[in-house]
């Protein structure tokens, strides 16, 4: 191949497809009285219990619900949880 020839070289990178974007869920006007789900995927066995303990102590009027998993896949919420949960805190760890 001649050294000075100009070549068209192709792009090896993957393709970002268009994505339908959803707005974030409405924020809470206050914490007290709300149902907040703490969901821990691939849970860190140190930080998540400490977080739950602290939240329950600092915010006793919140209904804290904990859904724990040690798996790498996401935790699904049940239809009932979707209906009755005001906010979610999702922990991601490995």
């Amino acid at each position, binding site marked *: 191949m001649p*050294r000075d020839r100009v070549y068209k*070289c192709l792009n090896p*990178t993957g393709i970002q497809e*268009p994505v339908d*974007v959803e707005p974030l869920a409405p924020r809470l006007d206050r914490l007290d009285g709300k149902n907040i789900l703490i969901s821990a995927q691939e849970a860190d066995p140190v930080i998540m219990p400490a977080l739950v303990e602290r939240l329950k102590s600092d915010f006793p009027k919140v209904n804290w619900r904990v859904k724990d998993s040690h*798996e790498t896949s996401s935790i699904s919420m049940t239809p009932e949880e979707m209906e009755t949960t005001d906010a979610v805190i999702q922990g991601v760890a490995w």
Partner: protein
Amino acid sequence: MLHQTALSSGVPQIRYVDAPRFGPGAQRVNAFIEPMLKCLTDPLTDEEKHKGRYVPPAQKRVLFEGTLQEAQAFYQQTKPILLTGRAPIARYTDGLPIIVPTQELVEEMLAGTSHKPDEVIALQSDRGGQDSSSRPTGVMSGGVERIRPKGTVVQFTPMNWTATVEKVAINAVMAGCKPEYLPVVLAIAESGCTTATTTHWSQWVCVSGPISKEIGQNIGTGMLDCGNPANSTIGRTYQLMAINLGGAIPGVNRMNAIGSPFNRGGMCFAENLDGLPKGWKGLNEEMGYRKDESVAMIVCEPAVCCQGSQFAPSAYRGLQGRGYGGMAARLGVEGKEGPHNWMEYLIPGLWSNRADTPMTFLMAPRMAQDLKDYGFNSKQEVLDWLWKKSFIPVKEYRKYGWYDAKTSGGIGIQQTSGKRWKDLPDDYMVPALGQKAFDNCIIVGGGPDEVCLELGGRGFFSGIYPVYSIDAWR
């Protein structure tokens, strides 16, 4: 990675806080609890309220124009990455020079398949496992197989990008492949080329079927070593596709803490189907395909990069020939001629601190024949025997470092009992080599010497790493 996952999930503005990885729990919580709570209560910005469709900028098909020397420099560009010690990390390559993917070379490469260049990579078959009638294939994500039906568009992790046949061909050119290798590379692409995270995930590919002879794969002496164009370049494509099609960059979104030597240059090999003892099936038939069909098994496993050399070949011959030496003493067959079940010798230590970690035994044809002569009429019979040997009391299993991860902290269902792990009595016996015998694997190949290596098995967290049809991509 977080931003990209959020985008591909349709919530690019998701609020998050970082949490420290080390230290006492209460101290770590102090570091992020306030900003975390603000995430729940601070009003949404206009951007966060946006609903619509994200359309990325159009991608250039021609990435660079210039001389070959200039192009080589362009494709080898690097960027310093903090977590690698600010070392330069390649953007488009595995760190080695590549064949520049000129338009002409990519066109030549595309002659290796009947598929159109603009066809999007999607799953080609519903056959993927041992029981082909009931088990669909899947794609790999984070080292775990996700079952998906035929036709599912493949997303390459971690960026969840897609690819066309031409994109795969570009990477095959860069790796140095010949056009006749392309169907194998396309089958590998079907896996999504996951790289997973943290522990030393090793990615490797085993080809099983007639195509290995057609393209000249080394199935004998040094089959994992250097020197064979097909094995070397096809293995390299996995890593180039992970980098380019999946966007996996060490220290950015590919967080293999130490990494694996298998991944530096890529690892592909093929099974020696002619070396199988009579009656033993190849990987292709084991996984639901016919003997005349070719498949690629893609494994991304964190368990065993490669271990072996537990005995000298001469010691093995002493065992089988006249019951001589240390192996014979351990097996209690001193003075007795073989065949002896040499796998018994491997057992101590196989699962000593690797509970529930299945293995692949890559064994030389001579050693497979000895197992057959001993009385194992199939690979499955060997695996069943080994798996049954691996049962340990659940009291011991709970002491392993993968216990929580593999049992969902004890609330998952243990397969042989149908009960939750945490509810099992201490003396209940559970397998330490995978949840089923078939999580483990036997591949026959290598030279005429007496050597066996162990790699990670074809199952790890759940299910079995899938195989992909190569013939579907011819």
